[in-house]
């Protein structure tokens, strides 16, 4: 009996802690969401109140969808994010496979070199990157952004994935070699499916910073044709007047695709984080 009650108390405490954290984490998101459906006056008078029939308004969403090429920004963000993720996962996994699978001179050194990128922020090199992009005629293209984000995401991807790939049974790869599979087929057909949780983890960790980034779109691709969502939303924030309805609505819309991608990856993500901890 004693034990059962003890367990119940433990569980109640654990849940209380988790619920508190969830409330804190969700609070700003919920505030943005409810205020995006309110009139400007109501936003400032009662910021914490949910929309009532009196204060309900879709004016923010109307502004957002009318002004600027919002759908186009959306599309740009999506292309940049998905494109960068694809290259990060592909090249990151390939490099990780080489580092974990093959014995060659300088293997450890190469691994360290690739990991240095985790510690040095890529923004330190912004000026050089801009000069390079100008010279390569890549300014104001989505390609520039995809290249930069791929470079930014690779170090951590290689670090995480090579750890996971070391855990893939060596016998399995050898069995593939004896059956005559090429190294590429061993990589794509045997190893990649087994590290899928790690791939999802890397994807989620990279996806959100890329989607939210303002710095590189502003510097490398500020043109109307290549504006991303975050950059596009800035038009509503002026020096003297800010259209809060539009800003909040724009941000609310921007959450959606990330949420959808997260739901797709989340089951794998949880497995990726807990694997190793629980067998």
């Amino acid at each position, binding site marked *: 009996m004693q034990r059962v009650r003890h367990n119940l108390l433990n569980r109640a405490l654990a849940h209380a802690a988790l619920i508190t954290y969830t409330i804190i984490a969700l609070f700003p998101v919920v505030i943005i969401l409810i205020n995006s459906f309110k009139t400007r006056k109501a936003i400032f008078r009662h910021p914490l109140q949910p929309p009532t029939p009196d204060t309900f308004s879709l004016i923010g969403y109307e502004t957002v969808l009318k002004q600027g090429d919002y759908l186009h920004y959306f599309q740009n963000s999506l292309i940049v994010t998905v494109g960068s993720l694809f290259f990060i996962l592909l090249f990151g996994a390939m490099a990780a496979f080489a580092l974990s699978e093959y014995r060659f001179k300088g293997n450890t050194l190469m691994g360290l070199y690739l990991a240095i990128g985790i510690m040095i922020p890529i923004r330190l090199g912004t000026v050089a990157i801009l000069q390079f992009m100008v010279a390569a005629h890549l300014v104001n293209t989505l390609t520039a952004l995809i290249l930069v984000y791929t470079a930014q995401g690779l170090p951590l991807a290689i670090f995480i994935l090579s750890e996971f790939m070391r855990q893939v049974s060596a*016998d*399995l790869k*050898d069995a593939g070699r004896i*059956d005559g599979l090429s190294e590429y087929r061993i990589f794509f057909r*045997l190893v990649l*499916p087994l590290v899928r949780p790690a791939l999802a983890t890397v994807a989620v960790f990279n996806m959100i910073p890329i989607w939210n980034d303002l710095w590189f779109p502003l510097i490398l691709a500020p043109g109307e044709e290549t504006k991303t969502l975050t950059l596009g939303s800035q038009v509503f924030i002026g020096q003297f007047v800010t259209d809060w309805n539009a800003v909040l609505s724009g941000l609310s819309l921007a959450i959606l695709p990330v949420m959808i991608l997260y739901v797709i990856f989340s089951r794998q993500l949880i497995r990726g984080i807990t694997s190793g901890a629980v067998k």
Partner: protein
Amino acid sequence: MGSLTLKNICKTFGKVEVLHNIDLEVEDGEFVVFVGPSGCGKSTLLRIIAGLEDATSGDVIIGGERVNHLPPSKRGIAMVFQTYALYPHLTVKKNMSLGLKQAGESSAVIEERVARAARMLELEPYLDRRPAELSGGQRQRVAIGRAVVREPKLFLFDEPLSNLDAALRVNTRIEIADLHRRLGTSIVYVTHDQVEAMTLADKIVVLQDGYVEQVGAPMQLYNDPDNIFVAGFIGSPAMNFLDARLLDMPPDVRTIGLRPEAISLGDDGPIAGKISHLEHLGADTNVYVHVDDKLVTVRLFGQHDYEVGAAVRLCFSPGSVFRFDEQGKRIR
């Protein structure tokens, strides 16, 4: 012409030399077991034969053809791994047929060979299952099946029984012996368990620290070991080693060896000791006797009772004493 010849194989990892000038001949249809403690290089040698590892120097010849530069799939070998190494996302049938498909065999041939192997290994009910839905013994049979369908010139087994529990290990051991009789293909089999080596092999290769200590038939190694290592490694319980000064021996003999089953207990043997422990196994009784500060194992057949602490003498015929010199070499 044998089915496998190794000529002067050496292997170094960095500065560490793990295999030293290994020469070996495997005849057609022979069952050869590499045995030795862990780290003796037996698995590395097997991987060199398979082509998963390159030898630093020396030649690997399979079926009369030098295969040093051929990839594993072109060497005419098939391998069974300790961890089974089945493809987790493929069904049993696809696991078995993948190698043939890669080799470009026609689907009729593949069907026929997979069906035959499945019948032989009693895997027919499981062909559409995935490895995760099979028990350990069944998985190992699938791994063997995957090797069998390739119809290789040489089978390689890398500690295939280590992951199975004791009862299943005995069964699978018999199955492998049976498989060898039916197929008649040469087998190279790696294990650290001398019982597996004794029960399966036509020829045992005892390895230690990258050197071949002795090659021979199981009974030859048991009855006539070349050195102290082989004498101690082959046979269970292991041979007892005692200081030669206990007996009246020539001066170059440093150590004497006595098999536990060659000793009996009596009142007038040459060596005195004290009983320290008894193990009753039903068919045998193992008696541990303290001689000076050494523990000597005595294996008596049948059931015997002694009192712990009793003084006894070890009796054995002079012909059953193995003699070794300072370097551990046998003096015959």
